[in-house]
């Protein structure tokens, strides 16, 4: 093992520990602000691993988009919601985390066995890191042209949809005449099911079962 390989190994170990530690923190902390900040830690460590793989452009994009945009958005959402609600402890609350832990551990064992058992076909050609952007650009305008252009349609419609959902509607005052049933604006025309039942605004069976849990 020469010096370069040693540095690589050590930095990989540091990044991996950082990533797994902060990912566990995201899941286990009950304070959602801590989780959001630790998520940024996960993203930064992933971009470090991209750097180790010679993918400098992807690493930059990872930091810019995930840490700079997505994570900041999550933090804004948390700040804007700003609602404190104390949940009363459920009976048998330990069952669900235990089940989740068992399932996750099983999945981890399965996937790591798969990774170790499979004889992977390693790519032998070495990519010099100076030309990654050029390579990506060439792919975008030759064999990945169709998905690249389709992504623009996807982004356009995601933007339109986000505006529709976030837009404030100016609702006209509806005159509800008793003889003619008028549907309130921006709702489904079907009446909610438990209209005559127990006084509740809940709609589906699932809500009922959730309440009784």
């Amino acid at each position, binding site marked *: 093992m020469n010096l370069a390989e040693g540095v690589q190994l050590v930095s990989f170990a540091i990044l991996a520990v950082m990533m797994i530690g902060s990912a566990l923190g995201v899941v286990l902390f009950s304070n959602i602000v801590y989780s959001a900040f630790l998520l940024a830690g996960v993203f930064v460590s992933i971009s470090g691993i991209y750097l180790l793989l010679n993918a400098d452009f992807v690493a930059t994009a990872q930091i810019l988009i995930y840490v700079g945009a997505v994570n900041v958005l999550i933090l804004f959402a948390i700040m804007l919601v700003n609602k404190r609600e104390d949940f009363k402890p459920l009976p048998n609350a330990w069952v669900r985390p235990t089940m989740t832990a068992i399932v996750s551990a099983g999945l981890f064992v*399965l*996937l790591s*066995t*798969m*990774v170790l*058992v*499979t*004889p*992977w*076909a*390693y*790519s032998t050609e070495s990519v010099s890191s100076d030309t990654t952007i050029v390579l990506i650009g060439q792919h975008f305008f*030759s*064999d*990945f*042209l*169709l*998905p690249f252009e*389709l*992504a623009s*349609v*996807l982004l*356009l*419609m*995601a933007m*339109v*949809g986000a505006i*529709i*959902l976030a837009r404030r*509607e100016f609702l006209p005052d509806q005159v509800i005449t008793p003889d003619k*049933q008028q*549907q*309130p*604006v*921006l*709702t*489904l*025309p*079907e*009446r*909610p*099911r438990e209209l005559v039942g127990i006084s509740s*605004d809940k*709609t*589906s069976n*699932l809500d009922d079962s959730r309440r009784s849990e």
Partner: protein
Amino acid sequence: MDFANLVDQLNAGTILPEGIVLTTLMVIVVGDLIVGRSASRWIPYTAIAGLLAAVVALYLQWNNPNPISFLGAFNSDDLSIVFRGIIALSTAVTILMSIRYIEQSGTALAEFIGIMLTATLGGMFLSGASELVTIFISLETLSISSYLMTGYTKRDPRSNEAALKYLLIGASSTGVFLYGVSLLYGLSGGETQLSAIASAIADANLSQSLGLVISLVFVIAGVAFKISAAPFHQWTPDVYEGSPTPVVAFLSVGSKAAGFALAIRLMNSAFPLLIDEWQFVFTALAVLSMVLGNVVALAQTSMKRMLAYSSIGQAGFVMIGLIAGTEAGYASMIFYLLVYLFMNLGAFTCLILFTLRTGTDQISEYSGLYQKDPLLTLCLSICLLSLGGIPPLAGFFGKIYLFWAGWQAGQYGLVLLGLVTTVVSIYYYIRVVRMMVVKEPQEMSDAVKNYPEVQWNLPGMRPLQVGLVLTLVATSLAGILSNPLFTLANSSIARTTTLQPIVISSHFSATVPAENSALQTQQ
């Protein structure tokens, strides 16, 4: 690689139908921006005209000698043309039924149609995509537009619940799918094209490795979410109940057809080495879907929820054709989806009409409808009976072709289970018909007693009427005059080269073509 050479290689003419849909989408979005709210008079008709033009363009590309385009990213063979046609037609019929519904709910029509066209575009690209990145992007285009449409009536808590559930479950299933796809990329040593993946994996002797099996399971989980096969169906009833009804119609036909197109192409091109494994997994999914969908539908009181479970059951029937793995099996899938398009959309058109007039979708409220609205009763009865598979109607011929293909391929247990669950499904379809037709006048429900005068001249009602009559005629006649549809389904499969190796390797290859033509002559 110079420019002229590149243009030649891209062969971009194959996506002309998608180009037409995209142009229509742009015209609608920009036109609505310029003209304002009064644009909602012409926008839906522009969209329908664009979709029909796309279908015509698809027809002109039939039997294209050079289907591979975009350097292998898109494959416009006859199989994809049929599926793209199904998706475009289903959107056209869905738009017919959505005009009045959206106007009455007070939401903006132009944006709704824009999002629906984007979903159509995603589904059409998904049917032809033969490369992993294209598959993923078109799948996301379809999914994200579907999430947006689900939450379109945003002041209704049911719609919010549906959108959130669909988004969360959809995002996790996409994640699982992506993991499986990335394993394929890794196992094949960096290939993204489906045909190259299969040969690279075979060359590297990885055909029985654990990684390939896990990748198969993960990919099937993603596909099964799209076609809402049990046990990946949990989102279906709640999303169907809380979404605007035209969206449900699109999800149950267009989105499902895209899912099946993806399933056929991915399983045949990328996993030909694991044919026994994927047929086994799909058999389990089909059994669960048929049993669960049809049995739970018995207990439903809301029409939308009932149709949700019925669509799970129908997905189970269609999977029989996929499991059969023969030419006849795939052709029967396409034939059934073509027929299912008309009968299911007809049922949803009736549902919308009844909801708009009475404001409810409870099954019990339909009692005695025959006295007040004979046309609606007739159409809903025909469509539901056809979904159940009652003989002279289209659904019967679709089912019998599916079961025949399954039987030929040796799937005896599956076909028998299909027959039993069909009988169960006939019970709950007939229950609604009986409710509407048989009841005495004094047993009429409150909603039907207060049934408003039938007015077809209200804005947006004409297209609804056109859609109603169109689906009614198609559902009643497609069974008797099914020969063109049969020919269409069979020839599209016969000309699709990616499906041929599988047919040769299966045990029944020698008998199938002969009996296939025998069935055609019987028809």
